[in-house]
């Protein structure tokens, strides 16, 4: 029976530095089958792809356990080259095309047909002449198969993104022994018509006997073309089912749904007044990969507002736009006054403080000490920790005050370190995050933007960081906007959760709303903005 499968993944598990990202994953693809793999961000889809394609990142991080079988035989895929030889074709999320080459040169890259010449006899096939005619005709054939009528000798430069996606597919189907085609979010960059053309091309390819593994966020697409759907969540296979049994809602719920016990006790004395502390109107942020395209959002004084959504839909762009770190346009009204955009200094002075998602890059000076990291930003924008030298018009650091403050913070936040002089690089992720929090508190924020606060830190520290943020809100009355990919986290922390889709707010939900509703919002459906 084994021979009836193009691909079998058997009990594959993978860890990255102690974090398990895939647990005991199994899945199988038949020839001619379109198998859809769906899941949230961080569900492990891309890791599975990387394993199938032998990407170096897998082997550099200690490999994986479990087996991959191709066409009924156990396969050792150590490199992309091995994967290609084994008949796996991959259409990457990032285009793997050379802009300076023509379509044909791209399609035939490193598989160029060659002709021997005078010199090639001695030195092997590297010096054989390219057979341009055959390159062209092969490419033509592949393009015809997917109904593309562009000239195969046109350079790629300037071609629309949609074309490139099809050229990638042409390259894969040109491979003679292709038996499995893996597509990672192929429609993410396409327009609607292009996407539907792509789907019909995929169906045709599957009919010719190629197995297709299709990764997508767009559930309607999945329901349209997949024969089988596998849902991955937190690195585990939640369900594999034939399409006939699937329903959009069911998949959405499975993608998101962890039955969680939320302890949302009615807290008394919460001062969430109806007044808005921050109003975002028509915000556009040009942050590569996280564009915001006209978001409207209001934040009430005293609340914790969550912003969720899949990666790439702009939730990080909001915080970075507000803080003036990426070019943006729109209107920001904070506490009644307008704040100029694209001006980090102004945002800071108004009392907006952000805990960056890029802790090690933006949030911290890794080689500086804990105390300096805590004090530096406040020194600059709040003029703290400075003292005058006699009558001179210069200020110098107040080392003593910095040290005292740092020690206070270290004991308050339980930062595990050898002392305030230790450099931040040596701290664990959780403790680094605590330093960031300390830095933010020192800034005396009126509104705190927290981006991915628990990314890359261990479970125990997660709790600690989250409860710290919560107590800032409850005890110090700081309004918090929390941005996270982990819906779970948002639901346990927030008073309201805004979900972003394609750079806009797709809906604002109650943390207790059913899983399916969150799933729908993240897929760009339903959810009318509630304000």
């Amino acid at each position, binding site marked *: 029976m084994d021979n009836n499968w193009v691909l079998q993944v058997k009990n594959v598990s993978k860890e990255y530095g102690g974090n398990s990202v895939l647990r005991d994953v199994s899945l199988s693809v038949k020839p001619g089958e379109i198998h859809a793999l769906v899941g949230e961000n961080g569900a492990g889809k891309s890791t599975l792809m990387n394993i199938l394609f032998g990407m170096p990142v897998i082997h550099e991080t200690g490999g994986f356990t479990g087996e991959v079988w191709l066409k009924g035989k156990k396969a050792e895929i150590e490199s*992309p080259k091995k994967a290609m030889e084994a008949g796996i074709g991959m259409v990457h999320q990032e285009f793997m095309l050379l802009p300076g080459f023509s379509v044909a040169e791209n399609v035939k890259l490193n598989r160029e047909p060659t002709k021997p010449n005078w010199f090639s006899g001695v030195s092997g096939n*590297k010096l054989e002449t390219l057979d341009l005619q055959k390159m062209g005709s092969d490419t033509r054939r592949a393009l015809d198969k997917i109904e593309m009528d562009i000239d195969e000798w046109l350079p790629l430069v300037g071609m629309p993104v949609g074309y490139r996606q099809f050229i990638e597919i042409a390259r894969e189907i040109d491979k003679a022994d292709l038996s499995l085609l893996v597509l990672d979010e192929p429609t993410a960059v396409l327009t609607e018509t292009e996407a539907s053309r792509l789907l019909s091309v995929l169906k045709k390819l599957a009919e010719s006997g190629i197995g297709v593994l299709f990764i997508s966020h767009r559930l309607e697409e999945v329901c349209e073309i997949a024969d089988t759907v596998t849902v991955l969540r937190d690195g585990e296979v939640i369900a594999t089912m034939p399409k006939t049994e699937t329903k959009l809602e069911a998949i959405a719920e499975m993608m998101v749904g962890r039955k969680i016990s939320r302890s949302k006790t009615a807290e008394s004395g919460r001062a969430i007044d109806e007044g808005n502390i921050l109003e975002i109107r028509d915000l556009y942020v040009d942050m590569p990969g996280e564009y915001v395209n006209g978001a409207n959002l209001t934040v009430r004084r005293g609340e914790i507002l969550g912003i969720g959504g899949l990666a790439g839909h702009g939730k990080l762009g909001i915080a970075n736009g507000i803080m003036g770190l990426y070019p943006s346009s729109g209107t920001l009204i904070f506490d009644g006054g307008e704040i100029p955009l694209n001006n980090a200094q102004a945002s800071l002075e108004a009392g907006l403080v952000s805990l960056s998602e890029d802790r090690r890059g933006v949030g911290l000076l890794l080689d500086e000490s804990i105390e300096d990291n805590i004090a530096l930003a406040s020194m600059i924008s709040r003029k703290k920790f400075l003292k005058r030298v006699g009558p001179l018009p210069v200020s110098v650091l107040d080392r003593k005050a910095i040290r005292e403050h740092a020690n206070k913070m270290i004991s308050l936040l339980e930062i595990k370190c050898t002392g305030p002089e230790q450099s931040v690089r040596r701290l664990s992720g959780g403790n680094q995050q605590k330093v960031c929090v300390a830095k933010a508190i020192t800034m005396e924020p009126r509104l705190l933007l927290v981006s991915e606060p628990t990314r890359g830190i261990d479970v125990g520290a997660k709790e600690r960081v989250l409860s710290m943020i919560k107590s800032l809100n409850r005890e110090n009355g700081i309004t918090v906007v929390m941005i996270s990919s982990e819906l779970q986290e948002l639901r346990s922390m927030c008073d309201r959760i805004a979900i972003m889709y394609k750079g806009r707010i797709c809906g604002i939900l109650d943390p207790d709303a059913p899983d399916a509703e969150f799933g729908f919002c993240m897929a760009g459906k339903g959810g009318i903005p509630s304000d």
Partner: protein
Amino acid sequence: MKQRIRQNAVPVLFLCMCVLGVLISGQNLRYIAQELISRLARNWFLVLSLIIPVTAGLGLNFAIVLGAMAGQVGLIIATHYKLPGLLGLITAIILAMPIAVVLGISAGHVLNKARGREMITSMMLGFAVNGIYQLVFLFMAGTVFPIKNPEIMLDNGVGLRGTIELKYCKYALDNLIRLRLFGIDIPLAPIIVVILLCFGIRWLYQTKLGQELRAVGQDMGVASVAGINVDRTRITAMVMSTVLAAIGQVIFLQNIGTMNTFNSHEQIGTVAIASLLVGGATVSRATVGQGLIGTLLFQLLFIISPAAGQRLMGNAQIGEYFRVFIGYGIIGAALLIHAWERSTSQRSAHRQPKEKTPEVTLNN
């Protein structure tokens, strides 16, 4: 159209300067032509040795200095054994080859470790290997290994002379075929060699290897996903460039006739690179044609600038300053433009896929 003018702005500008310079200097055209042809014959090969690394994405290879040193080692040995004429020349080249290959491989390895900083690294490599070269020929010659030919030795018996006269193989290639046309003496043989090299490079880019070089030059990531061994390809490019530079230096010196043992190679990198850039090449794009034309314009400037300076300012030195200023200025400008273009293209590359939704799985 605008694009085309922009692309050829540099050579056009230099052409104008050269024409002006010729007019101002008032030099005899025949003299200029004679000077030019012999300078071209000795410089072209070296300049063309730069093209392969540019297309392979290694930028301007300042490390052709390494090849030049290898070539000089060959010439020193050939001169030491008093090998006459073409025999000496060919021996020098054959001896230089393995040295150039070894240097090219090591340089390639180093540059693979220094991705994105290839140019400055290759420049530093030139200095580093120069140190070894000096050690060998200034100190070890005569002490560690014996030198039997006193003509090339310092009188105290340790180290080579600062200038070595290449009296045995001087003009060996130039004199092979001499052509007189309109009273101009044309050394045909080195020009034929250059033509062969041009065709060789053109042919290379029609082969599988050439395609790989170009692919690696455009995007190492894409090339490696396509199964191309990126590191190896880059090393191959360096080896080819270094070997060609070794041959180029031998051709260069047989025309000059004397070798500044410890200096001749040092200027090679900057002069050749400036020539290529004057032809309109950039850090990431260079063609044979640009190399040929660039050398022509740059050398023409060499010939006329002292006289032009003399005529214009009453001081030949001014023209010389001007020329040096332009020679190094063009390199600086090219690097600046490259940095600027790279930063803008990165920005626009980010801008393009507006609705892209990349996924993050690695969170450590």
